[in-house]
């Protein structure tokens, strides 16, 4: 998949969306390529940095707003979706992208994930899933395989894995896709597609952690383009997920539910009044 956009002389190149802060991720981390895909998607959509906000939670991948030239909010663990929802309903003119990892999004923020899908606010949620808590040195996350043995889980977790696409579909996300950081161009096209799609778009990105899960280097040979294109039929998407092994990449579901957007105006005035109460 390619973003077929001819660059014009005035258009910002992807590099222009990178900030002056350099990533401090481990060498070989998949998140570098996700960052690259973000910049390519922003350039393809010709997003204005001042009209774009990237909101994150806590974790390695949640550092991404600092590395992008846009508004950014590196927020509270698991609460990126709550903050982003507030931002989008207050400023519907902004493009709001939410980023984080599997621990942040599916465990600490699991409840917010469910209700963000259900509310269908016009957000794009990108989860960089490496099946481990990397920042805190390798604890199992909700997507860790039950038999993954480490010093911190000497007998494996024995727990059923969380299936984010199934949950997103059941909870009402309007656009559901899976990408791979080893395919930054394909991922950029997928992210651009998700940002264009109205309502809550969810993109699960397989992004290897080569430090705590070096075996994830093998993902490159395991991922494949999904054999069938997107569907707008949730029941059909659900049936596809029954046989999904977690390595099909592409758009799974593209719904047509109207995004939730409460009227704005009066609320803004009330916010100004609230601010007065905090004046010193």
């Amino acid at each position, binding site marked *: 998949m390619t973003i077929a956009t001819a660059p014009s002389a005035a258009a910002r190149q992807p590099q222009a969306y990178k900030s002056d802060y350099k*990533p401090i991720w481990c060498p070989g981390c998949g998140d570098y390529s996700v960052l690259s895909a973000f910049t390519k998607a922003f350039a393809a959509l010709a997003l204005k940095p001042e009209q774009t906000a990237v909101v994150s939670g806590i974790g390695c991948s949640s550092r991404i707003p600092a590395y992008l030239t846009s508004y950014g909010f590196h927020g509270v663990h698991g609460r990126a979706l709550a903050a982003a929802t507030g931002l989008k309903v207050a400023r519907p003119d902004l493009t709001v992208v939410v980023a984080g990892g599997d621990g942040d999004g599916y465990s600490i923020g699991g409840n917010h994930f469910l209700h963000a899908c259900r509310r269908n606010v016009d957000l794009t949620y990108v989860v960089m899933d490496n099946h481990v808590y990397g920042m805190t040195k390798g604890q199992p996350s909700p997507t860790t395989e039950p038999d993954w043995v480490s*010093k911190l889980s000497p007998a*494996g977790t*024995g727990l059923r894995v969380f299936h984010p696409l199934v949950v997103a579909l059941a909870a009402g996300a309007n656009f559901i896709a899976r990408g791979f950081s080893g395919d930054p161009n394909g991922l950029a096209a997928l992210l651009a597609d998700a940002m264009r799609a109205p309502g809550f778009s969810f993109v699960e990105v397989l992004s290897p952690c080569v*430090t705590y899960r070096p075996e994830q280097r093998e993902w490159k040979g395991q991922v494949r383009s999904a054999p069938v294109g997107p569907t707008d039929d949730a029941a059909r998407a659900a049936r596809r997920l029954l046989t999904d092994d977690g390595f099909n990449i592409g758009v799974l579901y593209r719904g047509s539910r109207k995004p939730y957007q409460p009227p704005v105006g009066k609320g803004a005035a009330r916010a100004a009044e609230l601010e007065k109460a905090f004046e010193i």
Partner: protein
Amino acid sequence: MSPTRPARKARPAPKRKTAPKLRVVKAARPGPTPARTMGELMAHAYALEVEASERYAEFAEAMEAHNNREVAELFRKLARIEHRHAEQILEQMRWIRPPAPPSTGYRWEGLEAPETADFTALHYLMQPYHALVIALHNERRAHAFFQHLAVGATNDKVRREAESMAAEEAEHVRLIEAWMKRTPMPEAGWDHDPDPPRHVD
């Protein structure tokens, strides 16, 4: 957990005695098809150089963040070389701006352009020799890519240009090989870190 299924063990930190192992990406898309026009061929060549340059620059940043300045500088140099190649293509084609991707998308054999380094191939303690191993692998893949296009070309002009590109990449392979001969090979245990980041006790 199924009792018949062997437990999946977390692997210890890789103990490489030579360069980080690089895997040739399995084709997940159609392989490179013959470029029909010069424009299409050169758009591929341009994207190939730009992506290689960007990846090396990314590697340089990662190495700088981990205070491995010698390797960072080498990756910077490689990024500059690839960037210069991209600029030469713009000049040769008299393009004032980068070409748009072909309407069918780029036809790479793997997920990325053949000269783009595998993003997982890094190690924070890697040495210049390892970086050159990565570069050599990429130049060889680029050479094979243009050779393949030359063999399959149906247009003489495209064939000649693809052959010229393949010859250039072959020259890069020789240059990197010569560079490697001047670069010390890593000693055994180069990746030993007495205070590793993976220490969890």
